[in-house]
């Protein structure tokens, strides 16, 4: 069994993530994002079931419809790269194995998955309402000095601090 390597210092990781964002602007001319790819997958799934309704929809029709490929977007490929890079990072650090990650309090796997699904759902809806997630708004919009993105980031921190007292005992 290979010894697991320690995680990177989060500040170093944050700095390198900033360089990744810079590289992304330089190489492909786009910033980073994540929820946009999930959004496209969702629209694509809906299009498979109800193509006419989706194509006629004011918002979803921009992504899917006759002559359009819902997956032909930079964010879809970027998220694929995130998965591959994450897998390579985990393998190189000797920590690639099957499992369900969670907090310090052990939970039944189905509960952990149900909470993760609920959290992801909430995050997905919120990201659509905010027109972006932490990657698209805070990272990319923030780097472009967009006022809305900075407001978003402040509200993310404010929301996090407000919710923390109710949830932090789960992490002790």
């Amino acid at each position, binding site marked *: *069994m*290979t010894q697991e390597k320690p995680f990177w210092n989060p500040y170093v990781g944050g700095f390198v993530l900033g360089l990744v964002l810079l590289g992304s602007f330089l190489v492909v001319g786009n910033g980073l994002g994540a929820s946009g790819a999930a959004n496209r997958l969702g629209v694509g799934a809906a299009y498979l079931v109800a193509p006419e309704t989706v194509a006629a929809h004011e918002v979803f029709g921009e992504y899917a419809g006759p002559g359009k490929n819902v997956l*032909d977007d*930079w964010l879809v*490929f970027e998220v*694929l*790269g995130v998965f*591959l890079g994450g*897998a*390579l990072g985990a*393998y*190189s650090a*000797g920590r*690639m194995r099957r499992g369900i990650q969670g907090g310090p309090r052990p939970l039944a796997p189905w509960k952990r998955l149900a909470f993760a699904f609920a959290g992801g759902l909430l995050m997905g809806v919120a990201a659509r309402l905010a027109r972006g997630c932490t990657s698209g708004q805070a990272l990319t919009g923030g780097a472009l000095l967009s006022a809305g993105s900075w407001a978003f980031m402040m509200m993310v921190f404010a929301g996090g601090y407000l919710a923390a007292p109710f949830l932090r005992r789960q992490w002790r």
Partner: protein
Amino acid sequence: MDPTIVETVHGRANPLVDPTLSVWGWEIPVYLFLGGLAAGLMILPAALELARGRRPDSVWVRLGPLLAAALLSLGMGALFLDLEHKLYVWRFYLAFKPASPMSWGAWILVLVYPVAFLAWWDPAWLPRRAVLWTAVAAGGALGIYTGILLGAMAARPGWNSAVLGPLFLASGLSTGAALLLLLPLDARDRHALVRIDAVALVAEAALLGVLLIGFASGDRTAHLAFEHLTTRNWASAFWSLVVVAGISVPLAFEALEIRRKLAFVAVAPVLVLVGGLSLRFVLVLSGQASSFDEFPG
């Protein structure tokens, strides 16, 4: 004089003067992928046996030639679906035309079956080394022919390269090793196949580089092929699925496994198979999209 405008259409502006060559759907890329895979499965078990002087320890490696025949049959099924006149398929076997890659291919396909069977069966009345070398030769011919089939079509700038033959052979060796790596194997065979796959991926990357350099430094039609692959509609699939996911990332996984002796994970072989299939799809479809129609007549 009557001011009526008389419009005449001549030369290539006439409809159907330039032939319509975007006629291949999913069947041909799938056939080319399975053909390459079969080539790899013919060559690898024979090469391992020739190198070691005894049959491979793993059952699945010994079954490689039979797997090759089964996958080739699937691929030929896809090829059959693509035929316009399916009932005339037997006419391929009434003639041999040395100048036609398709005729060579038809006969190579027929040759592969008995050779695959003999390579697996190992009858005592046949010299084993001769059988193994024949399996290597038949697999090599199969792998190269799938690339020549496209490369011989000069009317499509995206296929007009002699590099496609060796490129598809390297990809076939890599995908053949990847498929075997997904099966239960003896540790020695697994280590050997991971190393072979890594070398084949490096060769594939180098040949892909030669293909792009050839296109970039060629004439206007070659430049068009270069653009189709690297910056136009197929660029995102080419760079992400073929170059990054299909070659670079699995090569990194295998290099880590070899150098740091990390435990084997199935990520690299799965990515190699996805990359091999994507390579065929991207080259066939971008080749069909690259046409002389784009130049003014």
